C-alpha cells in the first residue's frame, strides 16, 4: 500500500532528514491528516444523522409501543414475543428469505451465463450487452406495471407457452407461482447489471491461463471449472452478497404486482414494516420488524466485510 504521506519524496531529492522533527514538517503532516478527516467528515456526519441515529432510534422504538399520537410506552420484549407468534410475520419472514435465496441464486447463475455468452468472441456482442443493460436502467415502477400485464393469466408470457399446450397460468394470483414469478422478474431486472460486473471479471483473466489449459487437453467444461471459476471467486462473492442485499430490501415489486397476495404469499418484510407502521400505526412493532430485517442484512454485510478485508490484503 503506497504510503500516502511518507516524507513527501524529499529523501529522493537529496534532502536529508534533520535530527528531530522540524516544526514545519510536523505541521505539514498534521495538516494533511486534518484534510483527510475533513474530506471524510461530511459523509460521516450525514450517516450519523440519517443512518446510525435512526437505527439506534429504531432499536429503542422496538421496545416500546408507539402509535405516534401519544408518547411511546415501554413494553420490553412484548413486540418480539408477539411477532414470534404472528403467522403473518412468520410468513413474511419466510417469503423474504425464500425471495433472497431464489433471487440471489438465479441472478448469479443467469448473469454469469450472460457474461460468458457476451465474452464468447461473437461479433457485435458489445452491442447486445449494452442493449441488455438497458433493462437495468428502466424505472422500476415501469418494470412492475409492464410485467403485471405480461403476467396476466392470458397475457403474453402465457401466450408464449401456447405451443406447449398451456392455456392459462395464474402467474400472480396462484400462491404457488406468485413468488417464483416475482423472483423471475427480479432476475430479469438485475441480471444485466451483474452481467457487466462478471464481464469485467472475465476480461481480467489473462488469456494465457486458458491457452495453457487448452494445450493440456482440458475441455471447455474443465477450463471453466478449473480456471474461470476459481479466478472469478471474488467477483462471484461480490455478486452474491450485493444481490442478497438488494433482494432483502425489495418493496415495490410485490407491492405493485401482487399487493402481497394472494393471501400472504408474497408479503415481504419491507411491506410489513410499511403496513404495520403507516397503516396500523404500530410504530413500535414496525421498528421490531425493522430490527429483524436489519439482522438479516447484517449477516450478508458481514460476508461483504470479510470479502472486503480479504480484498484489501490482496490488492494492498
Amino acid at each position: 500500500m503506497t504510503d500516502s504521506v511518507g516524507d513527501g519524496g524529499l529523501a529522493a531529492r537529496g534532502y536529508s532528514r534533520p535530527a528531530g522533527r522540524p516544526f514545519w514538517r510536523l505541521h505539514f503532516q498534521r495538516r494533511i491528516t486534518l484534510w483527510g478527516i475533513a474530506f471524510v467528515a461530511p459523509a460521516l456526519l450525514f450517516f450519523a444523522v440519517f443512518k446510525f441515529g435512526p437505527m439506534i432510534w429504531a432499536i429503542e422504538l422496538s421496545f416500546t409501543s408507539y402509535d405516534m399520537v401519544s408518547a411511546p410506552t415501554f413494553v420490553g420484549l412484548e413486540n418480539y414475543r408477539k411477532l414470534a407468534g404472528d403467522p403473518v410475520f412468520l410468513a413474511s419472514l419466510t417469503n423474504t428469505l425464500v425471495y433472497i435465496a431464489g433471487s440471489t441464486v438465479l441472478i448469479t447463475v443467469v448473469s454469469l451465463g450472460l457474461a460468458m455468452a457476451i465474452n464468447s468472441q461473437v461479433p457485435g456482442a458489445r452491442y447486445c450487452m449494452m442493449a441488455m443493460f438497458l433493462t437495468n436502467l428502466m424505472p422500476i415502477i415501469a418494470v412492475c406495471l409492464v410485467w403485471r400485464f405480461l403476467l396476466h393469466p392470458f397475457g403474453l408470457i402465457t401466450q408464449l407457452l401456447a405451443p406447449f399446450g398451456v392455456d392459462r397460468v395464474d402467474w400472480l394470483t396462484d400462491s404457488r407461482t406468485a413468488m417464483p414469478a416475482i423472483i423471475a422478474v427480479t432476475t430479469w431486472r438485475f441480471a444485466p447489471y451483474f452481467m457487466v460486473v462478471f464481464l469485467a471479471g472475465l476480461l481480467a483473466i489473462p488469456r494465457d491461463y486458458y491457452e495453457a489449459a487448452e494445450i493440456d487437453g482440458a475441455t471447455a467444461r474443465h477450463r471453466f471449472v478449473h480456471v474461470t471459476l476459481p479466478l472469478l471467486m471474488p467477483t462471484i462473492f461480490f455478486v452474491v452478497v450485493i444481490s442478497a442485499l438488494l433482494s432483502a430490501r425489495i418493496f415495490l415489486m410485490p407491492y405493485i404486482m401482487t399487493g402481497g397476495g394472494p393471501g400472504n404469499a408474497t408479503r415481504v418484510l419491507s411491506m410489513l414494516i410499511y403496513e404495520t407502521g403507516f397503516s396500523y400505526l404500530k410504530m413500535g412493532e414496525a421498528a421490531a420488524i425493522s430490527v429483524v430485517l436489519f439482522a438479516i442484512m447484517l449477516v450478508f454485510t458481514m460476508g461483504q466485510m470479510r470479502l472486503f478485508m480479504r480484498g484489501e490484503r490482496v490488492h494492498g
Partner: protein
Amino acid sequence: MSAVALAPPARRRRRLPAPLRRLKPWVGLVLLLALTVAFLLPILWMTTTSFQAGEKMFQLTTDWIPSVWHPENYPNALGRAPFPTFFFNSTVVSVIVMVGNVVFCTLAGYGLAKFRFPGDRWVLLAILCTLMLPLEVTLVPTFLVVYQFGWLNSYQGIAGPLIIEAFGIFLMRQSILSIPSDYIEAARIDGAGELRILWKIIVPQCRPALAVLAVFAFRDSWDQFLWPLTVVSVNEYRTFPLGLVAFGEDYGTPPTEQMSIAVLATIPVFLLFAVLQRWVNRGFGLSGLK
C-alpha cells in the same frame, strides 16, 4: 505451465469441418441476438402498447406493430394528472441526489483512499455498515428525523436521505486507490493546496467512476417510491412514480396511457446513460471488450 513442452501430444478433440467452423461465430451471434431480443421484449411491448388504443389492452393479444397508431395517448396521459409537475419534481430531486453523491462520495472516497488518520479503519467499517441500513429498514425513524427538520413535503426532504450512498463511496475509493500517489505528493511539494490537488489531479483521473456513479445515483433516485410515498402528501412535490401508481389506478385511466407515462419515464435515464456511455464503459472495466 512449464510442463507443457514435455507433455505428450494432447488428445485430438473432434473438430468441426472447416466451413462449419467459420459459421460458429455467426450462429453464436444469432443465438445472442435472440437472447437480447428476449430480454428486451418487455421494453418493446411497453413502447408498442403505449401507442395502442385503450381497447387493445382488453384483448390481450399483442400486435407488435400497431395497426393504428395513437400518439394522442401521450398528451392524454400527461393531462390526466399533474404529470409535468411530477416529472419536474423527480428531475429536481434526482439531479440533487446525483450531484450530492458525485461531490460527497468523491470527497469521502478520496479521504479514505489517500489519507491516513486515527480511526480510518473504523470509519471504513462504519461506512460499510450503512449497507445494511437502507431506507426500508430505517423508514420510521428517518421519517421522524426528516419531520423534525421540517422537511416534509419539500425537495430537501425527499432528496436528503439519499444524498450519500456507501456504494458511491466505495466506488470512488476503489477508483482513486489506483491513482499513483506520487502525483499527489509531487503536487504537495510544489505547494498545491489540497482542494486544488483534488480538482486538478484526482477528478480528471477518475472520470469513468464518476460517470458510473452519476448514472446509478440518478437512476436510484429516479426509481424511489417508498421514501417519497412516506414523506410527500401534496401534489406539488409528488414524484412521478407516486403519480403513476395513484393516478394510474384512478377512475378509468387506460393501461395504454400508463404505458405512455412509463415510456416517458424511461427516456431520461436512457439519455443520461447514452451521454455518459463512453466513460461508463471504461468505468466498468470493459474497455477490453471487442
